[in-house]
């Protein structure tokens, strides 16, 4: 049974930890980006080294205190805040922000969990390398959180999820032991892959304190383009053409609907829209070539080819780095425009890539049966990942339509489930999707997950209520 952190426990923690670990709790540790949930107060601890993390966890374990690990606070499924239950320890890794080692010749960086993703990208960039994980919240997200949630982002189509970018981790186990999996090995087949057990475990099996990250050579020249496509089916055919023509030079392939552009016009943020009109559907492509070939030319040839096949109707290519940044700003501002507009329901879904068009038309059909909505469907189509956000009509407020939320979710998740897709492609389960996990998962998978949780964290102190509900 989890207990609240008391003054007595706090005194014990103070005995073995430096003063700097204790910081005043502010609301920012209790909020989540969607603004739907608010955490209960906890004891905020900010250790700056792995041994102190281990000390904290050991004491919490001895006294059955719940721990909420905290990175950059950008998670979208409430994994970083505990809305109810006994007062927890909020363990923020923000001060564990050292890059311990860089092995340039091996393309490896060893970073602590609290390093901000953007800082990792910039450091890699200064050595003509890239760390390809890239997502809208990269300026505040911390790598430990990215690993704990196995974050996706826009470059998955080329480089994979966070899981694929990591060679090993260091983690503090729920009993306070330290697991050192920090490896520089690209090959190591010695038993179970424990690193990957912790990656994506959302802080329920331990606290990731550092990771050995893969760097990649920086493409010599890069360019982005918006291609206007008739419909999602054309987008998928274009994707397959890209794969044939560009191979791994294709770094991103994002679908954007006219609703997203309308939101940007209505509520901002202020961006430069690529066309004088709002295309029903368009795709943002990113290409990075290594030697010889010019990305711009590659995109031009691709466009001509796709144009001849009637897949694309219009398009623009970035002519400068500034334009490329401006293109991406359009894509990256859509979540903020969604936020400002106020969704009834937002979902992070995936289906087999080839089934995306069918998913979109089926979802639209089924939703129209229960009411009128504005639908902003966009996302990482190259990964089969769609962000499907449903909004009230202009003039209505989100609270007017709150009653539709459950119905909308059920419709979408049922379709996805029928297509062998996922109701959470890249955001994780957190505390918001635990019901869906038990509803839509294979019972054997659930049983295995429970056994793992029971074996590693028998007291259930690690991020209570995340992924698996408290029983």
């Amino acid at each position: 049974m989890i207990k609240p952190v008391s003054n007595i426990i706090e005194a014990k923690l103070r005995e073995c930890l430096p003063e700097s670990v204790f910081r005043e709790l502010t609301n920012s540790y209790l909020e989540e980006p969607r603004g739907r949930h608010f955490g209960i107060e906890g004891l905020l601890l900010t250790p700056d080294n792995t041994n102190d993390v281990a000390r904290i966890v050991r004491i919490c374990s001895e006294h059955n205190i719940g721990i909420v690990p905290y990175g950059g606070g950008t998670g979208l499924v409430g994994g970083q805040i505990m809305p109810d239950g006994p007062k927890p320890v909020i363990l923020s890794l923000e001060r564990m922000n050292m890059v311990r080692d860089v092995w340039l010749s091996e393309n490896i960086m060893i970073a602590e969990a609290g390093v901000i993703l953007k800082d990792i990208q910039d450091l890699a960039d200064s050595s003509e390398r890239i760390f390809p994980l890239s997502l809208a919240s990269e300026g505040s997200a911390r790598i430990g959180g990215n690993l704990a949630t196995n974050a996706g982002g826009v470059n998955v189509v080329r480089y994979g999820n966070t899981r694929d970018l990591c060679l090993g981790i260091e983690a503090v186990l729920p009993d306070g032991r330290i697991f050192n999996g920090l490896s520089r090995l690209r090959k190591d087949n010695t038993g179970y892959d424990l690193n990957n057990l912790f990656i994506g475990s959302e802080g329920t099996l331990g606290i990731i304190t550092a990771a050995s990250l893969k760097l990649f050579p920086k493409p010599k020249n890069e360019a982005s383009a918006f291609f206007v496509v008739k419909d999602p089916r054309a987008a998928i055919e274009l994707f397959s053409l890209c794969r044939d023509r560009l191979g791994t030079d294709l770094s991103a392939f994002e679908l954007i609907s006219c609703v997203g552009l309308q939101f940007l016009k209505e509520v901002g943020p202020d961006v430069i829209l690529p066309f004088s009109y709002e295309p029903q559907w368009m795709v943002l492509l990113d290409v990075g070539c290594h030697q010889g070939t010019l990305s711009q030319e590659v995109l031009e040839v691709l466009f001509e080819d796709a144009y001849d096949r009637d897949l694309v109707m219009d398009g623009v290519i970035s002519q400068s780095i500034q334009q490329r940044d401006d293109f991406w700003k359009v894509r990256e501002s859509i979540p903020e425009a969604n936020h400002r507009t106020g969704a009834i329901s937002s979902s992070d879904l995936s289906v087999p890539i080839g089934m995306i068009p069918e998913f979109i038309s089926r979802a639209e059909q089924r939703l129209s049966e229960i009411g009128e909505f504005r639908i902003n469907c966009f996302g990482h189509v190259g990964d089969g990942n769609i962000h499907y956000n449903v909004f009230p009509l202009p003039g209505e407020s989100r609270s007017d339509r709150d009653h539709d939320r459950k119905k909308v979710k059920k419709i979408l998740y049922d379709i996805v489930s029928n297509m062998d897709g996922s109701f959470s492609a890249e955001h994780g389960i957190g505390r918001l999707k635990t019901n869906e996990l038990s509803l839509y998962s294979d019972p054997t998978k659930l049983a295995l997950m429970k056994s793992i949780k029971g074996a590693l964290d028998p007291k259930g102190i690690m991020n209570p209520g995340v992924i698996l509900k408290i029983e």
Partner: protein
Amino acid sequence: MKVIVPVKRVIDYNVKVRVKADGSGVDLTNVKMSMNPFDEIAVEEAIRLREAEKVTEVIAVSIGVKQNQETLRTALAMGADRAILVIASEDVHQDIEPLTVAKLLKEIATEEAANLVLCGKQAIDNDMNATGQMLSALLGWSQATFASELNIEAKNAVVTREVDGGLQSIKVSLPSVITVDLRLNQPRYASLPNIMKAKRKQLDEKVPSDYGVDLTARLSIINTREPETRKAGVKVASVDELLVKLKEEAGVI
């Protein structure tokens, strides 16, 4: 009325500039090059004038290396009608100095019987801010610099200029050389169908001798160096300590 728009190929605005070890200039090997952003604004303005039927033809001109073709293709894709490339160097590191560029542009403007030259106020690589003014003197045309608004009326151009402390409105008679500032417009993107069409647009290649212009440099670069790196700041405990530091270390009070 024809309008000439000179476009320069420069190191991309967002590239971190590296100075060559021998101090002879900036390293441009394998560096992303783009159209000078001010020239992009000039191209956009010229196209808008043509769309408003104030001018009949937009001719983009670039002077430099063979690869300036790419820059001209961008101008053509944005909507310029045709382009002239004057190949004046084989080495991307060789900058053609403003007077030479102005002399070449003078010949081209005369040959084309143009009535207007719209150019960027300066190139972001060497920040000379000289070519437009020199060209106006060589042609004996009026000049209006730093334009943030432009209206062509019959035989005049009304230009709003960005000056220290505000805006100044002037009327100049055509023909004229007008140099454009950042806030004049937001340039359009080169659309892909237009990029395709641009490949079929006329791009004439010339050399300086076609215009009887001598390339011999009058300016020589003595040295190029990185700006001094900023030193890390220090924290002071009190206002008194700050005053002492400002007085004794910084010597500013």
